[in-house]
């Protein structure tokens, strides 16, 4: 069993005997210490998509999935091809199947991802908890702050924007936490 608050992209739950893939999950506190999870689900049998809300403590039946290590091979339009690192099998996913991690998927990335399979079919991919990406553009340091507490916007190679420490410069490699949708963790040693 999984609770509503444990849902995350890549989780598959069973509803009325059908497997549903969580494509997106947004956690919000509602009132008086209760919380809700807004999810985007895709029926893995029919392809039908819907938005559903769960209370954080709702109990849901999850589906046991196979997980394998995979790396990104190449991107062609909206199709993302991943390769099983053990047997070199290629698998394709659409952009919307990996919507939650898409901002941090870019050509040439070497991260070893977790490919998620339902009945031998690749349904989603999870990135490692920490990934390293290069800053493609950011303004120069405005205040000369070195504490890491003052933040400024920055852009990655694939156009994804995020906040980074004021001292980060163009070309710097940074660590990103993928668990919270992609927050800056610090400058990476490359």
């Amino acid at each position, binding site marked *: 069993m999984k609770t509503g608050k444990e849902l995350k992209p890549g989780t598959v739950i069973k*509803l009325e005997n059908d497997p549903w893939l969580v494509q997106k999950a947004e956690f919000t*506190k509602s*009132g008086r*210490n209760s919380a809700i999870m807004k999810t985007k689900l895709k029926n893995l049998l029919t392809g039908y998509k819907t938005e559903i*809300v769960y*209370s954080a403590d709702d109990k849901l039946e999850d589906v046991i999935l196979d997980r394998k290590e995979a790396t990104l091979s190449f991107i062609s339009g909206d199709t993302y091809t991943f390769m099983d690192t053990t047997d070199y099998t290629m698998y394709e996913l659409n952009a919307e199947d990996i919507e939650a991690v898409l901002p941090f998927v870019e050509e040439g990335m070497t991260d070893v991802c977790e490919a998620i399979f339902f009945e031998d079919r690749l349904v989603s991919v999870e990135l490692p908890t920490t990934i390293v990406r290069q800053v493609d553009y950011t303004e120069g340091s405005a205040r000369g702050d070195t504490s890491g507490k003052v933040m400024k916007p920055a852009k990655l190679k694939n156009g994804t924007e995020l906040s980074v420490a004021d001292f980060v410069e163009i070309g710097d490699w940074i660590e990103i936490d993928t668990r919270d949708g992609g927050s800056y963790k610090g400058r990476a040693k490359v």
Partner: protein
Amino acid sequence: MKASWDVFCSVVDNYGDIGVTWRLARQLVAEHQQGVRLWVDDLRAFVPLCPEADVNAARQWQQGVEVCQWPEQWQPTDVADVVVEAFACKLPEGYLQAMKARATPALWINLEYLSAEDWVSGCHGLPSMRPDGLKRMFFFPGFDAGTGGLLREADVLQRRRAFEQDPQVRQAFLQGLGVFPASNARLVSLFAYENTGLASWLDAMAAGSVPTHLLVPQGRIMGDLLRWLGVDQLALGSVEQRGSLTVQTLPFVRQEDYDHLLWSCDFNAVRGEDSFVRAQWAGRPLLWHIYEQEEDAHWVKLNAFLALYVKDLSPAAAQAFTGMWHAWNSGGDMAQSWNLLLEHWPEITAHAERWCLEQSLQADLAQALVLFYRNWI
């Protein structure tokens, strides 16, 4: 079309849950001719809002609503056409089983908390599918058209205006509570949780150039009030004078009379969801003591409302208003923020009425629920 409704209310925090559900139940009956059962797990919280009620009755009719004691051991009962689970209060397992067995599915609604945050309209009206096949719909009150709106009786503003236009009615209401304010006094109501900021606010009002008459209905703020007054106890209705400030305690009043109190005052400090909304329909400047949440989540909600509320105020008035709310909700120094607010009093007062009118243009929550059901069947 008359549908049957079961509204479930679990009393968790004082009168907030029962305040909202009792008001909703009455409105569904009075304005939409629906058949409503209100299930309450603690009738002791209901009686102050409806003094005619019998705290021990398993079932009773009040103002057209069948009010039922929600028993610890659930007894089988028929399932209504619409089931409202207020604030995710968890329906009894036996009732869920009966819902599953019902020939025609009931519309199951989780009535959520009020929030002005952006995400609310994105979640309003969305379903929640359960593994057992039951489907629950999430219904969010709110301040814009993408939400379920606010609880508001169709005639509430008309009744308020009639009350305001007849000074004798106001006077009679206040006299009925034993309140005789000086003709030039600013009347302020105070209903709040414990607050360390109270003393500084009372100091400021006591030192003010305009007399203030503070009316304090029974509640959790009483301890802080007694400490500031330097007394061990206060009989209900008794009056204490400190400088320009007259402090008077009041008994807890039923919802209808609380409206009259809000309409009688120039400024209302409120707490809880129902009082917060009623203070907005009063069209007076207000101060909300929000329910404190883990990880300071309440600040996000408070600021979301403030951003919406002050957007048409001048920057200086908006800052004064926001500053006062921040001070009150952090238990900080209220003296400076109160005095700053007074500098913008005419603008903030006019804005309160405008805000009330603007919000009243939205469909109200009860109406939205009835429409939701009609569209669902």
